[in-house]
């Protein structure tokens, strides 16, 4: 049961299938297009197992990994090939949780150069890996066992899918002969994750494991990034792979990971389309640059900044693109959309030419599609052709890498758009709809004040992670971001609990990228913190210097806000009434705990928490009645954003 040779050959009637790998041991299984085939013998093995009369109740006891005696010099295993593929891909950190079916892979990590961070929960592993990918630009890797381990990863994988973050998940699986039998800790992981991955692999052939992992790693970062998954049945990871006598390598010995040949990415847009878009931009009187997360992923922030400043085109961003353009710049209008700034939403609504780069026109950005930039000709730059005209029609589609296409556009736009009047109008909106809040002394601390204080106490390169909800919106609104890869959040999926594990991943990525001096601050909410706070144990164990500021209003605040406006103030299940003392809880974990109740404690407590070398948690008791504004109600008109409850 430990090697492919022990697997019964495939049944005879599946004529379309190639010879079973068990009997095809000597040949590399390649299809005519040169791409190494994905395993295709799953069905056969399942049938074979059934024919062999193996009862489903015969739970797959963790088999023994072949002992050192059994593994001769000229033999490697599928698990070793998987780890070798990670090493060949330059992976330095892996986040995961042990378990039965993934044990062979963990065993192969024992001697590897990769640092494994044991997380408290698989969801934490996926979020940490996701944040690692956002901060470093290289795929974050997470690992879990079969069944519950794999399903616990799903939230983090779905998050990476929505935000196009490079992520690789390796999951253990029951041995192939048990697959389909409802074996212990068996879940159809590739089935479950197909809708939320860019691609996934069922690596049932020990010979193919290394290649599958390498391909998954390369795919995650290529073109439009996204999550990939390799499901690793235990017999495949335990399975022996003979090494080639001449060079000592196995067929599965991976070099630099490469995506499959069939995967093509368009780098540059065709010249004619670029010319047409450039002419339109030159003729614009009210141009607006809309930067999406793809700008940061393509390292296109610099070229976009130059383009905007040189041509005097005001800039708005989506939430994932926060930091792509310095928010303290004259022509920066910051984030647009549901809780975007009033001036960003006015600009989006009234522009005549919208240059959208690397964004997918999510509903939180567009509001109702009928009223989204209704007067604008749309230039849409995206590396994924399927994003063109998916939600908003692109008058000038430019398919290609954001950095490359923006360079093309910069070359082609010869005349400045005559937008003086427009810039004045926009400046007027910036004054009219200034992002301010009132902070009376006799009321509890305003959360916005705390965010500003954190921003002030940290350098520009500080990395901010968040959970999801009101605190996330205040963090994005009141922290002034000037650099890319500093804002780390769960945008598309909106996964509460993202912040703390993300801070762990962000910290390790920053350290790996030589950004050790950059502080990592998790602005969290009490609801989000309660969802994944067990990861604090990891931060303490790994001595990670992170600061968690819990904006504690003892509510699922965003829900409470919506209930007040849309559900007649019936606050069903949004209030906690009681919360643990997060500072005391932090101390119990071995972290440093702080508490803020009043304005005069804010600055010095933040200073002390940041100064603590290691994880610290500040329990900030903020005004429970504070709401997030501006607000465009779901499906509403961006230009009609509400500035207070009266406007809704």
């Amino acid at each position, binding site marked *: 049961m430990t090697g492919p040779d022990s697997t019964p050959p495939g049944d005879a009637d599946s004529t379309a299938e190639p010879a079973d790998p068990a009997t095809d041991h000597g040949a590399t299984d390649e299809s005519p297009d040169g791409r190494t085939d994905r395993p295709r013998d799953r069905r056969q093995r399942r049938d074979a197992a059934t024919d062999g009369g193996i009862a489903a109740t015969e739970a797959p006891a963790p088999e023994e990994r072949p002992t050192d005696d059994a593994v001769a010099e000229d033999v490697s295993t599928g698990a070793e090939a998987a780890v070798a593929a990670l090493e060949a891909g330059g992976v330095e950190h892996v986040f995961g949780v042990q378990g039965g079916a993934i044990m062979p892979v963990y065993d192969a990590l024992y001697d590897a150069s990769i640092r494994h961070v044991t997380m408290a929960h698989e969801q934490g592993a996926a979020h940490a890996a996701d944040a690692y990918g956002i901060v470093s630009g290289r795929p974050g890797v997470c690992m879990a066992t079969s069944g519950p381990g794999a399903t616990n990863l799903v939230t983090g994988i779905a998050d990476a899918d929505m935000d196009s973050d490079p992520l690789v998940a390796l999951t253990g699986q029951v041995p192939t002969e048990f697959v389909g039998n409802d074996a212990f800790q068996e879940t159809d992981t590739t089935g479950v994750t197909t809708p939320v991955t860019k691609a996934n692999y069922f690596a049932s052939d020990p010979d193919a494991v290394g290649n599958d992992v390498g391909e998954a790693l390369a795919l995650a970062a290529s073109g439009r990034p996204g999550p990939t998954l390799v499901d690793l049945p235990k017999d495949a990871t335990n399975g022996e792979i003979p090494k080639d006598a001449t060079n000592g390598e196995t067929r599965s010995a991976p070099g630099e990971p490469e995506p499959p040949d069939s995967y093509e990415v368009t780098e540059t847009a065709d010249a004619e389309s670029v010319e047409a878009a450039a002419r339109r931009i030159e003729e614009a009187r009210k141009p607006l640059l809309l930067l999406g997360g793809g700008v940061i992923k393509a390292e296109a922030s610099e070229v976009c900044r130059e383009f905007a400043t040189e041509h005097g085109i005001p800039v708005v961003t989506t939430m994932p693109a926060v930091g792509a353009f310095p928010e303290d710049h004259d022509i920066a209008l910051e984030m647009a959309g549901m809780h975007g700034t009033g001036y960003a939403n006015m600009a989006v609504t009234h522009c005549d030419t919208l240059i959208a780069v690397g964004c997918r026109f999510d509903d939180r950005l567009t509001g109702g599609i009928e009223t989204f930039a209704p007067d604008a000709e749309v230039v849409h730059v995206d590396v994924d052709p399927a994003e063109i005209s998916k939600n*908003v029609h*692109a008058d000038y589609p430019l398919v290609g890498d954001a950095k490359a296409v923006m360079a093309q556009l910069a070359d082609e736009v010869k005349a400045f758009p005559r937008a003086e009047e427009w810039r004045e109008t926009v400046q007027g909106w910036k004054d009219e*709809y200034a992002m*301010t809040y009132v902070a009376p002394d006799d009321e509890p601390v305003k959360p916005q004040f705390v965010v500003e204080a954190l921003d002030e106490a940290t350098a520009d390169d500080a990395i901010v992670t968040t959970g999801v909800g009101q605190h996330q919106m205040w963090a994005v609104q009141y922290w002034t971001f000037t650099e890319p890869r500093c804002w780390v959040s769960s945008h598309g999926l909106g996964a509460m609990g993202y912040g703390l594990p993300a801070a762990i991943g962000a910290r390790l990525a920053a350290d790996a990228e030589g950004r050790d001096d950059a502080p990592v601050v998790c602005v969290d909410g009490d609801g989000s913190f309660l969802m994944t706070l067990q990861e604090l144990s990891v931060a303490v164990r790994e001595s990670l210097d992170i600061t968690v500021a819990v904006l504690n209003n003892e509510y699922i605040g965003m829900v409470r806000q919506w209930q007040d406006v849309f559900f007649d103030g019936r606050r069903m299940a949004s209030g906690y009434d009681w919360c643990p003392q997060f500072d005391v809880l932090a101390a119990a974990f071995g972290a440093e705990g702080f508490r803020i109740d009043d304005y005069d404690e804010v600055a010095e407590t933040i200073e002390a928490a940041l100064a603590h070398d290691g994880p610290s948690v500040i329990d900030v008791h903020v005004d429970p*009645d*504070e709401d997030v504004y501006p607000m465009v109600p779901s499906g509403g008109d961006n230009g009609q954003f509400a500035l207070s409850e009266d406007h809704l």
Partner: protein
Amino acid sequence: MSGGMPGPPPEERPTPDGRRNAQGIRVDPEVAAEPPVRRAVISVLVAHEPGVLSEVSGLFSRRQFNIESLTVGPTADPDRARITVVCEEPEPGVDQLKKQLRKLLPVVDVRELPDDAVRRELALIKVDADDPAEVRAVAEMYDGRTVDACPETVTVEVTGSRQKVGAAVETLGRFGVREVVRTGTTALARGTDTTTDQTSTEQTTNAREPTTEP
């Protein structure tokens, strides 16, 4: 409850005249019309491996594409299978469906067949055998043939366009239909056009999509 901000209220702000329709296309609000629904036959060449059909059909259901029929079968190349999809979508939807299909790794080629493509459907219709000669006569009107008969029932096979098969089923209905099975449409382009030509640049995965006219 609190958190109000300064600035003119919504009703005092300028509003633009333009509108977009539900497909995100700018339209004249006076004559705004939804784009008509179009029936398209899409031929999808895929790697012949487990899980592909579920990947493709999963894409349709999760993105709410309106699929009328889907057939799958082997091709001349043992490593390839073909899925023929008939969909009904407003114009941007057909285009979007093709682009989403091309993103799936096992999808080799996606091509919409022209209107004049040869389209065929097969139906087996089991009717009461009270008047077998009459059943046979009606079947022949539709180039159908009797493939099974017993004292109680006659089963007729009809092949042809969707309309023809539909008409046959309707006409045979007067004999008392016990059961009908239909295959869904399978189709092939006319003349020398093939859908297995992988060198065609327009069809490759992630190829640039030409501008869609509204």
